């Protein structure tokens, strides 16, 4: 597993151990992330975690990561930084890993299963219009360069996995989580809104928030990743009974911290984005086009979501949505107290 020390990765390791997979090579970039995995191994008798340190930008480290494995969970990805960093950490890294798989000794590549953790960001939701349902049949984004760089890099990463799958013939399972949240994660997805200075601009309004509690998400990744019928399939990952963005914000204010927020209706956000786009063009980028009408439509246009396919292979949330939110807010409250 790549990204084994990350926010989602540690939970995937735990779910694998619970499901009886005891021999796991955990690929980590930072040694400091090993402690939690080692503690986890102690509470699972028979667990044999092979902690493997390195950087997936290095081809030789990728070769070490996939040597003699039959099932690869690829979770490592660039989450923040410059566009070049995001592409290097998500796409170049993916290509290195795939090349290592293609050429590695031991288990033949075509008998290997690869589970890619992708993102909701790969869907081309803008042409669908507001309120459209997003499921696994929704077309992928045609204009990733018009979206945020994270979504762009994740789409290119997924395309790369499909290209290599076609060439090498390994089994590919693609997981597309919505907004992963939980203890250890952040407070707000941009789908709820964005903080500018002291004010939180609430842009999500009554849109459904495709939350995936980190434990539930990890369970979905393990279940679909090991299910005999999942080869060649993609799965949306989110919890049931999704809250709206405004409900999430309200609950946050009630249980974590009072924050000053301003709600911007969608049409106002569109007008502001249109003005910014126009100004950005006229001024040759004096203010960055962080909002464009396309980006606004993708992030805050509002969709409904389906996880029926995930349910069809036997997944159900381990933690109920209300408990998941309570646990998350308890963690965030603790973080606020530390500050």
């Amino acid at each position: 597993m790549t990204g084994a020390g990350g926010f989602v990765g540690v939970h995937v390791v735990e779910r694998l151990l619970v499901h009886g997979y005891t021999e796991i090579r955990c690929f980590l970039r930072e040694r400091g992330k090993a402690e939690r995995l080692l503690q986890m191994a102690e509470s699972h008798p028979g667990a044999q975690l092979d902690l493997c340190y390195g950087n997936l930008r290095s081809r030789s480290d990728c070769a070490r990561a996939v040597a003699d494995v039959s099932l690869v969970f690829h979770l490592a990805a660039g989450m923040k930084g410059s566009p070049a960093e995001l592409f290097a950490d998500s796409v170049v890294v993916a290509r290195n890993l795939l090349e290592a798989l293609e050429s590695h000794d031991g288990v033949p590549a075509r008998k290997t299963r690869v589970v890619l953790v992708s993102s909701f960001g790969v869907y081309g939701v803008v042409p669908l219009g507001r309120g459209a349902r997003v499921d696994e049949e929704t077309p992928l984004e045609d204009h990733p360069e018009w979206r945020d760089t994270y979504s762009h890099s994740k789409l290119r990463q997924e395309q790369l996995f499909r290209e290599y799958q076609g060439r090498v013939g390994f089994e590919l399972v693609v997981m597309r989580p919505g907004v992963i949240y939980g203890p250890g994660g952040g407070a707000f997805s941009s789908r709820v809104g964005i903080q500018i200075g002291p004010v939180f601009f609430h842009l999500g309004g009554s849109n459904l928030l495709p939350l995936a509690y980190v434990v539930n998400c990890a369970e979905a990744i393990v279940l679909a990743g090991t299910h005999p019928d999942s080869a060649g399939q993609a799965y949306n990952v989110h919890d049931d009974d999704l809250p709206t963005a405004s409900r999430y914000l309200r609950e946050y204010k009630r249980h974590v911290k009072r924050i000053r927020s301003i709600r911007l209706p969608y049409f106002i956000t569109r007008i502001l984005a249109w003005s910014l786009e126009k100004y950005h063009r006229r001024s040759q980028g004096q203010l960055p086009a962080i909002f464009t009408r396309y980006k606004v439509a993708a992030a805050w246009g509002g969709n409904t979501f389906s996880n029926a396919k995930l349910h069809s292979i036997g997944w159900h949330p381990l933690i109920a949505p209300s408990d998941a939110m309570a646990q998350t807010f308890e963690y965030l409250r603790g973080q606020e107290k530390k500050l």
Partner: protein
Amino acid sequence: MGLKIAIVGCGKIADAHAEEIKKIPSVQLAAVCDLEPIMAEQLAVRYAIPRWYSDVAAMLETERPDVLHITTPPQSHLSLTRQAVGAGCHIFLEKPVALHHSDAEAIIEAATGAGRKLAVNYWPRFEAPALELRRLYETGVLGLPIHVESFLGYDLGGEYGTALKRDPDHWVNRLPGKLFQNVLDHVLNKITPFLDDELPIIEAMAYRGNATGSESSAGGLLDELRVVMRGAQTSAYATFSAHARPLGQTLRVYGTKNTAFVDFMARTVVLERKQTFPSALGRMFPPFLVAKDYLRQGMKNVSSFSHARFHFFDGMRRLLTEFYLSIEQDTPPPIAYKEILRVSQMMDRIFEQVYPEVRA
């Protein structure tokens, strides 16, 4: 049709080059290249650049650019410059120029020997405040420079700093002067116009800062640097700090007539004048005069903003425009080669003292 431009090296800084080239209507950005095809592709897609390559020879052969922007790590600058001038290109080079002064000399020799022009991306020197300072100096408002202080703050928790801390093999960590070498050009090239000697006496010291409450450095990286320089008539301090807050980029020039203080972040130039009022009045008026200067500068910035001349890399656009013009009109490039070489020579001297083991 104007000059045809290409970029080799599609990392973080290439974005700034692509962005600024595209703002200049008289040139066309035709192609980009990176050894890693995915990196070349992403830059081309995001900036709607017609073609991308993973082989620089193929790009030079097919595209025949007039100017090649080299935005790769400095380890490859010399070989790429030789290859590009051999293909007839003028060179716009990202700093740091080279690993060592001797390589910088070879780079300039390669370009001039082939009858091509070269400029280095010393963009802060072409920012509006730097141009204003130059005017004050050249018109004699400052008098003779006695002492210069150049300060640069750095955020180790930012995009660039985080990449260095996370990856011990990052190309910056493999430079002879490590982190300092990647940023020191911007500290020194602001001083050199005021230093009268070819090479001043240089005393340098570096250490790891551990200021409480600020971003701590990792992996033994030295992140605080102090340099004292003394020329025949002028002395200078150069300071690099990863811990001082707020992050600043400033220059103070003490002249025999007046002193100028330039803040490159706030884009202000303030003159600290010799007082002519007597006694207590001479102590009372200066804050008001300085306040008036700041107000004037603030209004100037508002005006620049309203005229869309307040971009982060405005200095780079100005530098590129002047460089391209120097090619079209066959005039001297905007930065004298001897300035570039003085900076690289000073950097060598500093790193010899700061990292003697690397030099050995």
